[in-house]
């Protein structure tokens, strides 16, 4: 059965706007300046004979001279003393960790070039997020400080130490306060160092504050159960997940871990067992998690608390229900959700993205009613990934304001940028005598400090982390410090006259006493494995007995404060997006160019607003609008976002850095000042107004690039249909098509790929992994606007209506335009399909693209002359053309065009030059490497030995690659799944990439 459901990438495509059809008609979105070349001034100008001869002569002479250079001199400089473990040409892998996730760092000839997850990691199981993948590029960031700074001038470490020590001793004598302000520190050794420092300077206080705060959850658990922690959430044990605005697949607390857990109940294996979890998302802004939900219900921030109260009442808690006045949909849904939740008692999980203590206490109460504690929520195996305490930090700022603080140290914290009131903060800071920042660059806060003592990048450091209960990871340096940097910890050790001055020694001592003996392990074993896990603790019994009346009161008050009446009144949601996150990595061009999973916008933040609501306000796409609260206002471009709740707008945090570096400065605008501090935590929602201001701004959005002309390439089914007929929705049963060409033989290997659309969450980690592995250039905002992004793998995000296929007719569609808020989303990773009958191969005039006997579509860059016929003939639109020499062109200086940053390049992959077509090679360098390894060891290739970069990093295992000639391989098995279909199989290109249908677990009601 073929679905006639309508899928569309952007509103312009849906509405077939004139501009859109124009842009998509030709090969290029912009007209090429052919006319200019061919007009009077160009072609028909008569070149004087003398000029002609001069040019000819010069050309001839130049060519002759160039040809005279018989053999260019290339130096080959070997090591003087080669480290024993290094063999030039062979990568070494070292275990380390990133943000508490155990990783493997690939180094070539001593320089780290790629991050992989460590399969032994408890959190990630060998997977990695986009930010983790991109973190290696930060090591080669030219914007970092070259050495310590004192009052804006470079200084030396002994001078710096002398000064700081002197100041500290003075402060010790006068009894004033010292503050260490940091983001979450879960490193046992760093904590011990700070502890030692505090012992020496007892007036010191360590304040932890996170830009994106989770204090609400910590405080709520403290109130409800007496344990001030973020619990361990077990999405894999939940058959029913109800999320109130928590983007747990994208950004919330531990997204890689949660994605893996989440997908384990929705992937191929789960569906084979006829089981699939159900996920209901209630939210206002379209989050990545929302796009993956089976059912998505729109509620405004002001309705969130009330909705939770209603749910609590419907589940049999205190009867405080107060139906939402303007949202009958949600009211109906909440009753149904309550029913479903009660049916799944003990196998369900309710989470909420709010940072409000009261709201989180209510969520605790709901989960307690549902018996989630001990099953899907584990307070005993808590997470230490966020430990920030907002109130402590705010009171710290107040103390600074009152002049009680004489010294302040900033470790991996940047309140100068992300504090709610930068002016208030800088004024307060000015009253502190000794201001020390350990930032690696002259960032917003470091600029306010008289001392900047840059610390190492994590790939240059020893260190450790304890991200969750019982799991300890180690950081191991993979390169000598590039700049004259020093551990922040060594600063503290030195200033407090600690007997151990060497941080490496300190960590080793710490582990030898506190961790290794208990684990019956040694330091060497630890360096090999990268982590130690003591196993899960038995989850204790926690009962919820709190009186909720105060909580209800607070929630009601907050709801009233958010819901303002008025023509332009809106509720503002501030969120962290998947790519740039909280803004720490804003100078990373890989992350800036990674399209947002939902809006597909790169290089900017924007005001996301619902289509109908925007129409009502008279605001259109690309218009500039101003969002205003009592304290702050911001003018940003508008993005029409289907699925956004009417009366709300969303703005991403993490943009608008001013002192982060060339690539990230002034990208977007800073929305942190919209945050407010209420009831002891930072609030990420606010009442605001919106108004159109003059002018437009074009966002660099990739959503409709490489469009597939509305062809039927997405296949989905409901769980009900799937259980009835596993082939449901795959569109099987086509009339036999006939081959124009002979089939290729694949006697050896046949490399193919299977992508599970039901597991893919759209996070984009594969895109960054691919960029790192395959030397994919960053093109920048302007070039993205011209549709020239170079990613070999993209994630197409399609919107569709909730209606069943049979109901869709042309009239219905038009009617649906009225209700664009209610859309569902599907993510489809799209990469070269390595077709057996590849349309690109037949049109290449120079045979630069060829089919291999192993089922791959090869691309020989040096044969390519850039006719771009192949890209034109590719029905999947996966070929990318190098419009510039991105590696050596001053226009791309801010990204990867400098010798230092280019140290990150993978030496096994040729960086492409201008005028050449490129595309996914299925990581052929890895295939060849894997084959060679097998040959050298005189054995056959093991399945799973060769992984493509995208597959290796995919947190949900949605991508499986392998040899289909091996019937036992994972990919062969995946492709025999009933859900498998091939994109555009009706045109008989015989793709090598098979997709598995998206299944939606929609309630039968």
């Amino acid at each position, binding site marked *: 059965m073929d679905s006639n459901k309508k899928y569309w990438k952007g509103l312009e495509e849906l509405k077939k706007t004139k501009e859109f059809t124009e842009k998509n008609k030709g090969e290029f979105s912009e007209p090429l300046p052919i006319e200019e070349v061919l007009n009077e001034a160009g072609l028909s100008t008569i070149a004087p004979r003398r000029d002609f001869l001069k040019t000819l002569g010069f050309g001839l002479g130049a060519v002759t001279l160039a040809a005279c250079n018989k*053999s260019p001199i290339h130096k080959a400089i070997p090591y003087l003393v*080669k480290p024993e473990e290094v063999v030039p040409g*062979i990568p070494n892998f070292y275990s380390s960790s990133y943000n508490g996730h155990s990783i493997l760092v690939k180094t070539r000839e001593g320089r780290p070039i790629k991050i992989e997850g460590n399969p032994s990691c408890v959190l990630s199981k060998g997977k990695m997020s986009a930010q983790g993948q991109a973190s290696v590029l930060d090591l080669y960031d030219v914007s970092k400080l070259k050495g310590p700074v004192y009052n804006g001038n470079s200084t030396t470490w002994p001078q710096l130490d002398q000064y700081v020590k002197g100041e500290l001793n003075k402060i010790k004598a006068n009894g004033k306060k010292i503050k260490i302000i940091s983001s979450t520190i879960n490193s046992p050794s760093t904590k011990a160092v700070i502890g030692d420092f505090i012992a020496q300077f007892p007036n010191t206080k360590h304040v932890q504050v996170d830009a994106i705060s989770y204090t609400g959850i910590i405080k709520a658990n403290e109130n409800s159960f007496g344990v001030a922690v973020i619990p361990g959430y077990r999405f894999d044990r939940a058959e029913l997940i109800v999320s109130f605005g928590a983007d747990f697949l994208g950004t919330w607390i531990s997204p890689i871990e949660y994605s893996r857990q989440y997908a384990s109940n929705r992937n191929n294996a789960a569906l084979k067992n006829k089981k699939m979890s159900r996920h209901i998302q209630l939210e206002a802004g379209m989050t990545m998690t929302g796009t993956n939900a089976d059912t998505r219900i729109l509620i405004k921030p002001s309705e969130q608390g009330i909705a939770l109260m209603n749910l609590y009442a419907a589940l049999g808690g205190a009867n405080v229900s107060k139906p939402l006045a303007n949202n009958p949909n949600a009211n109906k849904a909440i009753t149904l959700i309550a029913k479903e939740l009660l049916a799944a008692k003990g196998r369900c999980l309710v989470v909420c993205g709010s940072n409000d203590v009261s709201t989180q206490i209510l969520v605790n109460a709901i989960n307690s009613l549902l018996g989630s504690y001990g099953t899907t929520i584990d307070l005993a195996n808590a997470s230490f990934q966020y430990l920030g305490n907002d109130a402590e930090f705010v009171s710290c700022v107040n103390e600074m304001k009152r002049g009680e603080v004489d010294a302040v140290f900033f470790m991996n914290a940047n309140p100068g940028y992300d504090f709610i009131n930068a002016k208030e903060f800088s004024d307060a800071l000015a009253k502190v005598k000794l201001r020390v920042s350990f930032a690696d660059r002259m960032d917003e806060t470091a600029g306010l400090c008289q001392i900047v003592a840059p610390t190492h990048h994590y790939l240059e450091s020893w260190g450790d982390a304890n991200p969750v209960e019982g799991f300890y990871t180690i950081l191991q340096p993979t390169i000598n410090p590039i700049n004259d940097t020093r551990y922040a910890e060594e600063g503290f050790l030195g200033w407090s006259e600690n007997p151990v001055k060497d941080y490496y020694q300190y960590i080793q001592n710490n582990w030898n006493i506190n961790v290794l003996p208990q684990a019956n392990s040694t330091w060497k074993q630890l360096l090999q494995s990268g982590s130690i896990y003591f196993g899960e603790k038995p989850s204790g019994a926690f009962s919820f007995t709190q009186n909720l009346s105060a909580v209800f009161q607070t929630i009601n008050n907050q709801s009233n404060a958010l819901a303002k009446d008025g023509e332009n009144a809106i509720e503002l949601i501030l969120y962290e997006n998947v790519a740039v996150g909280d803004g720490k990595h804003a100078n990373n061009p890989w992350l800036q160019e990674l399209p947002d999973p939902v809006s597909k916008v790169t290089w900017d933040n924007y005001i996301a607003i619902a289509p109908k609501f925007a129409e009502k306000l008279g605001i259109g796409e690309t218009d500039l609008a101003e969002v205003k609260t009592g304290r702050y206002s911001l003018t940003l471009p508008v993005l029409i976002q289907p699925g956004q709740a009417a009366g709300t707008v969303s703005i991403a945090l993490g943009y608008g850095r001013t002192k982060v570096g060339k690539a990230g400065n002034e990208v977007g605008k800073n929305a942190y000042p919209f945050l407010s501090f209420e009831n002891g935590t930072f609030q990420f929602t606010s009442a605001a107004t919106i108004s159109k201001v003059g002018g437009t701004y074009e966002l660099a959005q990739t959503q409709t690039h490489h469009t597939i002309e509305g062809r039927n390439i997405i296949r989905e089914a409901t769980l009900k249909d799937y259980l009835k007929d596993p082939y449901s929705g795959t569109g099987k049963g086509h009339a036999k098509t006939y081959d124009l060409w002979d089939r290729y033989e694949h006697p050896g290997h046949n490399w193919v790929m299977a992508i599970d659309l039901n597991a893919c969450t759209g996070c984009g980690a594969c895109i960054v992994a691919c960029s790192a592995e395959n030397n994919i250039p960053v093109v920048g905002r302007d070039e993205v606007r011209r549709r020239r992004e170079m990613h070999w793998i993209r994630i197409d995000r399609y919107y569709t209506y909730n209606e069943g296929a049979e109901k869709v007719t042309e009239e219905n569609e038009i009617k649906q335009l009225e209700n664009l808020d209610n859309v569902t989303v599907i993510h489809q990773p799209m990469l070269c399909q390595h077709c057996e009958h590849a349309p690109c191969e037949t049109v290449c005039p120079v045979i630069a693209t060829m089919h291999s*006997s192993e089922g791959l579509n090869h691309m020989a860059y040096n044969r390519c002359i850039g006719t771009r016929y192949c890209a034109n003939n590719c029905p999947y639109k996966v070929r990318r053309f190098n419009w510039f020499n991105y590696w050596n062109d001053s226009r791309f200086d801010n990204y990867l065009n400098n010798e230092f940053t280019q140290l990150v390049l993978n030496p096994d992959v040729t960086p492409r030059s201008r005028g050449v077509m490129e595309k996914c090679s299925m990581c*052929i*360098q890895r295939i060849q490497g894997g084959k*060679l390894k097998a040959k050298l060891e005189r054995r056959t290739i093991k399945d799973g030995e060769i992984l493509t970069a995208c597959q290796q990093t995919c947190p949900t295992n949605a991508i499986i690659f392998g040899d289909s000639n091996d019937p036992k391989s994972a990919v062969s098995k995946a492709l025999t799944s009933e859900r498998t279909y091939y994109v555009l199989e009706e045109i008989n290109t015989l793709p090598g990439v098979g997709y598995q249908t998206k299944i939606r677990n929609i309630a039968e009601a």
Partner: protein
Amino acid sequence: MRSISLFFKSILPLLLFTAYFGIFSSSVSFAQDVGAGAAIFKQKCTACHAINKQVLGPALKGVSERHTEAWLLKWTKNAPAMIASGDPEAKVLYDKYKPTMMTAFTELSDDDVKNIYAYVKAEGDKPPVAAAGAAVGADGTAVGGSGDGGVSNFMLIGLIAVIVIAFLVILVLNRVINTLERVMLRKKGVEVEEEEEIKKDRLAGLKMLSKNKKFIFFLVLLSVILLGSAGWKGMWETGVHTGYQPVQPIKFSHQLHAGVNKVDCQYCHSGAYKSKNASIPSANVCMNCHNYVQATEKYNGEISPEILKIYTALDYNPETKVYGNNQKPIEWIRIHNLPDFAYFNHSQHVRVAGIECQKCHGPIQTMQEVYQYSPLTMKWCINCHRETEVNHKDNAYYDQLLAAHNQLKKGEKVTAAVLGGLECGKCHY
């Protein structure tokens, strides 16, 4: 005449050297036992000793004066026993060089030992020769000192120049004689034909030829063919550097190391067996041998200037055996330059396919200085892939691959090309 004097000047030092060496060598070859001693010395002693220089053991110059012959005999044949026996002289020596201890050479006869010391004495008595500049090797050939082997090249050019000049002089003289003869004849009153007339006739011939259309056509055709073929050939050879032999910072001889001493290629180029890069050995690999192999016997007791370059690079002091901090890498010049877009893996060819290094690198064991033997063109790669049978013996990787192959069933050769060795993506990605 000036050129001749220059030429003489240039070869003068050489002549002097040769003369000097001739006299010198005749003066040293006085006793038979010195020759035998030299042979044994080179075989057994040079690993640790030199005449004028301390290596692992002391410099041997004047050793006969320092110790009695009887002691030397005993010591040489079994030094460890002497140390153990507590001989005072032996003790002093041992303390100075410990923990290194001289090996026992019980297989040497008394005569052998005496021969050795005779040789040592003879060598020690020689006046030291300056090693700088054009040092003379033991076998009498000139060894280039500061880089390009100037003397021999200059000589050759000089010779050619002299011949050419002589030829010109002969021509001119001939001409002069002719003219003079004619003048004399004219004075005698004999009519002599003027030369100009003959010239005129010759030019007329050329004019005739230039009017011959067939001739012109032939000439044009010939030149087109010649120029065309030269151009064609030149184009094909653009960027092909067969025979490329740059001057390297160290005059490293593969002929000596791989040819004469038969050092396994893998010893230095271990990467070729494991990695895509064959890799130039790091200086610490050189030091495995050159810690004590210093070729002092060839340089009159001095360390070979080429080996000294390794020491300089490592900032190594051969006297104190201490490495300093002022290390400078050795900047070799790459000879085999594959383009960046071609991926080549040594281990695939050397270990999997079992191809000899010489197949691509030529008779490396005979090369004094390495040059590019193969053209390294794609045609060359492809031809080899077409011809070379895959080395699938005892390699389980190929089992399934070959089982599926028709060629094998038909009894045909399975070459690299048959297994996809000609596909673009095998080398270009």
